[in-house]
């Protein structure tokens, strides 16, 4: 092992680090270099994505600290693409102060995500979690002129740091029992059979930290305030990139590391292990997320509670376990992330035009911008799980995998609950679309003068179209992504 080889295998991360430093320097050097900073950040991300494509098929460094496999490469690219869309989103955001620093933080968070995705070792995973977390805390509180942003940052930080403490404690207990930090080695050390109390404590504490990251109830309380208060690009990245990477790592930890202590969440046949814990989290998230979302009148808060519910659905795949279950979870969380970035892009533009993101700010959006409304309809309906959009296929995949798990449809209760939840969710999703398409321009608008149409520049238009068409296309042709994910799983 020499440094040149290390550098070669870690070239995508290196590229992002260099870009982050360059953006930081550019931002400091010229006060009005916001446009250049965005361009450099976007170019750096694309370069890193290209570097991922050039990586070898399989490689392992330092006993799993850095793993290169089809799965990690695929999800590094997905994280980079999400970061790319976030950069475009940040470009249109009206917080031009300290653009360089903001983008540098975004890039640092992206490195954290890439480390999370590309590691099978507890220490490295924790470092990735912290790097992502610390960057995102600052990003959430970045808008110093807005007290809501400060609230978002503080809440996210307090919840996040507590959750990290739990995770670290849990991981140390697991290390104490197994004497190793490699996931595969932990999986071999743990034996199937009754779960020992110490291991149970370690597992539950570890899962608490991840439940925070994916905003699963009852560890979701930060999400509404952060989604609503943080600058929109930060919220979008917290909701998408951070979530995807967390699900990838959570899946690896429970399926590889804790694999033997699976337990069972089947109805009337619960066996102690991580599956019943996740099932409880999922059930609670679905119920709480959907019910509380019904009462929201702010689109960002609504998206936050729907994110809680979606975290619940996504957990179904992990509870089902196995290669199929993991694939379903990965597919769903990927689709969800892109949908949410799109939805947040629309929210950002509406906020720019109307100064807010309540339902009333969206009223009669169709008459102001058919493109925005059409794209929002696609994103919202995909979240609601209606065909022919990708969210529908994702739900079918998840639920069929969960139904197959165990003998005699043991997870039927959870699938039924999830379907009930998505039935409830249709009401509030339709309420958003009602504001956009049905409400008259006269009623509920803030300014009485006739509504002007909303102008989008080329990049905003393109990114929205790409995301919307992508969601539609993946709904019609899901096999493109499904086959790729299934093939990348060992």
């Amino acid at each position, binding site marked *: 092992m020499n440094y040149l080889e290390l550098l070669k295998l870690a070239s995508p991360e290196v590229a992002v680090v260099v870009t982050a430093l360059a953006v930081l320097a550019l931002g400091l050097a010229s006060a009005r270099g916001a446009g250049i900073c965005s361009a450099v950040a976007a170019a750096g991300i694309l370069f890193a994505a290209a570097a991922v494509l050039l990586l070898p098929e399989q490689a392992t460094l330092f006993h799993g600290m850095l793993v290169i496999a089809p799965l990690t490469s695929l999800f590094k690219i997905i994280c980079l693409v999400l970061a790319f869309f976030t950069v475009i989103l940040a470009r249109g955001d009206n917080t031009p102060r300290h653009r360089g620093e903001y983008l540098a933080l975004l890039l640092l968070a992206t490195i954290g995500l890439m480390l999370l995705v590309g590691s099978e070792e507890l220490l490295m995973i924790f470092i990735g979690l912290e790097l992502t977390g610390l960057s995102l805390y600052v990003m959430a509180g970045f808008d110093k002129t807005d007290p809501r942003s400060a609230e978002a940052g503080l809440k996210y930080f307090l919840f996040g740091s507590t959750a990290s403490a739990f995770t670290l404690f849990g991981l140390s207990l697991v290390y104490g029992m197994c004497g190793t930090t490699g996931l595969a080695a932990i999986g071999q050390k743990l034996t199937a059979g009754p779960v020992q109390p110490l291991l149970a404590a370690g597992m539950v504490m570890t899962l608490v930290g991840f439940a925070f990251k994916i905003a699963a109830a009852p560890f979701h309380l930060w999400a509404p305030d952060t989604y609503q208060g943080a600058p929109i690009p930060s919220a979008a990245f917290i909701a998408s990139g951070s979530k995807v990477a967390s699900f990838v790592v959570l899946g690896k930890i429970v399926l590889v590391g804790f694999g033997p202590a699976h337990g069972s969440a089947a109805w009337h046949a619960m066996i102690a292990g991580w599956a019943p814990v996740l099932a409880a989290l999922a059930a609670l998230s679905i119920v709480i997320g959907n019910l509380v979302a019904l009462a929201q009148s702010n689109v960002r808060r609504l998206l936050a509670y729907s994110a809680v519910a979606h975290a619940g659905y996504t957990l179904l795949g992990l509870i089902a376990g196995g290669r199929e279950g993991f694939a379903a979870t990965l597919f769903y969380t990927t689709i969800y992330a892109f949908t949410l970035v799109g939805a947040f892009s629309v929210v950002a533009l509406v906020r720019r035009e109307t100064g807010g993101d309540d339902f009333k700010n969206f009223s009669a959006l169709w008459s102001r911008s058919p493109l925005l409304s059409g794209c929002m309809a696609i994103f919202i309906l995909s979240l609601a799980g209606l065909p022919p959009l990708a969210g*529908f296929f994702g739900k079918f995949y998840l639920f069929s995998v969960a139904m197959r798990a165990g003998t005699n449809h043991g997870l039927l209760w959870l699938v039924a609950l999830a379907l009930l939840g998505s*039935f409830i969710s*249709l009401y509030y999703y339709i309420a958003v679309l009602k504001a956009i398409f049905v409400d008259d321009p006269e009623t509920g608008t803030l300014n009485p003068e006739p509504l002007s149409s909303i102008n989008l520049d080329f990049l905003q238009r393109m990114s929205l179209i790409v995301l919307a068409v992508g969601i539609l296309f993946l709904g019609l042709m899901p096999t493109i992504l499904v086959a790729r994910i299934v093939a990348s799983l060992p």
Partner: protein
Amino acid sequence: MIAWTIYITFAGAFGVLFMPRFFARWIALATALAGFATSLLAFFNAHDARTFATIVRVPWVPALGMEYHLAADGISLTLALVTGLTAVSAVLFSWDVEHRPNEFFFWLLLVIGGSYGVFLSADLFLLFVFYELVIVPKYFLIAIWGSTNKEYGAMKLTLYSFLGGALVFLAIVAAYVTAGSLDLHQLSQYKFPPQFQSWAFPVMFLGFAILAGIWPLHTWAPTGHVAAPTAGSMLLAGIVMKLGAYAALRVSMNLFPDGFQMWSKWIAVLGVIGIVYAAAVALRQSDLKFVIGYSSVSHMGFVLLGLATANVLGVGGAVLQMFSHGVIAALLFAVAGRMIYRRTHTRDLDALSEMGLGHALPFAAFSFVVASAASMGIPGFSGFAAEITILLGAWKAYPLAVLVTGAGMVLVAAFTLRALKKTFFGERYRGGHIQQGRAPVDSDWNEQTNITAQITVAEKLGASLLIFATLAVGLYPKLLLDRILPAVEAMRFLKP
């Protein structure tokens, strides 16, 4: 060839969306006509109505065994035909839509395309995709272009549909993981464990039957029909309710014959209650569209009763009733929503009876008389042929149900005649000048009522098409039954 109905309709839908507004209705009409012509040709060219013969079969998501698989037998062809028929007349009856016409016809064509898709799907997942695809367009059609309490009606209808969809989803996923296949051919050969069928069948059947207006989950139908714009009501009553009934027959009954046997008498009970109850409620309504909305529920009760008989006559009659009711309900809603409401701006029966519409709008009166006669089951119209077939089938299976239904048919005749008389032949009308503006008029109208406006050519064409269809089938039901009955005989749930 019949597969082109789907492609043409979806292509037309997106064409409408991106064309100048002047062309919108012409494109919609051309699309609907092309779909109708295709379904008509396919219907008459079908050589083998018995087998559910594959038309297209392409792998879709190989990892999960999903296929893009279309097939058709006599039942599918019949229902595709009524879809085409109703679609053409629905477009003709929305010729006067001036408010956001592109979007209107886009959603309209999506409903039509999705319906074709459901009737032709031979893959469970594909069928469900088309089935769910229809939900959201209905919401927008009602909430934007509807009348009277439209947002409430639209949301109620959407939530009921989606609740049904969720139940179906559950049962579909369960069937898929149990049998390991989504192909309807394979699934209809597969022997599901009876214990599994005993819960999967009612879940799936109820899910589909909600859309078919099963009592007591029928309340979305009258509310939704009343709130919908004319074309929306026509499609809802004419086609969308048939989606539920068709899928209940094609999927839940054919896949789970044992479960069906366990629950069939309960379906018959609910069907009969629906017939009588909805007819009784219709008798007390003062809004013309509510009368027609409840009559739809009552007529769909016949479909459920026919399905529950599990013999060739009953089930064949149910399919014939789906066709017949599709045509009749479309005609009734067209007269009530377009010909009357657009001119009088009220649907209150007492108010209408003072207007002397029988003199002012003779063509509307003629159409409504025909539709009412067909709806009451007068021989010579399609309603009679369908209902008598169902009752013949039911006589073998549930003699008691036939007696109760007989009473229900009296109620049907009563409310239909009441509505007909009050609408067109009101006794309070003394002749002479036509009284304008005296009737309580809906507050959301800001134009003057104008009941002397001529019935337009588009309306006449649309109504004539439907009148012709109900007469043709009423006089020569063999035309449809020749294709329906062999297909029903091939189903596996029939009692020997």
